[in-house]
């Protein structure tokens, strides 16, 4: 139960929880803090995860359902997958995958209690971004090499 603040007599007597949403002030978060590596990696972990969940999830479903529906359906999927849009999305999903995975490994390590020292934490936060870019580059190098 929220503690009552002093009310003006003109205000209706109703509990704060029924106040319309725009009446509530929101704390700024992304806009007021200086972006450091740990903050950035955490935010990008969420962004990459949700990108993977929606775009990646739908792509996975489409890929499998198309394969199960026959050659024509699969060719339609393939035409999109190998188009420019498909490749852009593919690169984006690959990056999101590595970003989220390396960030996730960082989470698992932190869960054991290790890696909280300021310098160590900062270094590994930066390494997540580096690893994500390297992983993406490696995978797409292999894909494009295999395609030729």
């Amino acid at each position, binding site marked *: 139960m929220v503690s009552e603040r002093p009310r003006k007599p003109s205000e209706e007597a109703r509990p704060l929880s029924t106040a319309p*949403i725009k009446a*509530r002030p929101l704390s700024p978060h992304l806009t007021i803090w200086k972006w450091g590596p740990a903050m950035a990696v955490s935010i990008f972990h*969420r962004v990459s*995860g*949700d990108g*993977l*969940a*929606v775009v990646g*999830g*739908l792509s*996975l*479903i489409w890929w*499998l*359902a198309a*394969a*199960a*529906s*026959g*050659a024509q359906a*699969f*060719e339609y999927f*393939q035409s999109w997958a190998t188009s420019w849009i498909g490749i852009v999305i593919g690169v984006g999903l690959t990056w999101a*995958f590595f970003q989220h*995975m390396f960030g*996730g*490994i960082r*989470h*698992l390590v932190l*869960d054991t209690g290790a890696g909280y020292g300021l310098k160590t934490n900062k270094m590994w936060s930066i390494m997540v971004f580096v690893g994500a870019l390297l992983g993406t580059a490696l*995978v797409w190098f*292999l*894909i494009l090499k*295999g*395609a030729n």
Partner: protein
Amino acid sequence: MRSGTGIAQVRGLGPARKGPKGWIVQRTTAFAQLFLLPWLLVSLLRMGPVTHRAMLDWLASPVNAVLLMLLVVSVFTHLRLGLTELVEDYVHEEALKIASLLIVNFYAIGGGALALFSIARIAFTGTPA
């Protein structure tokens, strides 16, 4: 062993309204995906051009079909928890929150069902090529 007061038990585990189960499941599925996703990636890279025929042949192997099914279950469980957390953090208007959570759950479960069925169909029937 009682946790908190009687009223807290009725309200359900404090402000978060859930215990550590989600935290554990998220990490278990994450750990599984740490192995299954690289496996999928390497399998696809080694397949050469991912033609329909190549996919059907690949999924004819029970090991590949089962591992892919496990991956699908793990991924959709993991994303269900992740998207739920996203809704809980940013959607506060009650009706919209409930609607969003329903959409997340139907997407995760429905999408997972469709993906699993697709794998099964290919693995059992070889699918019209």
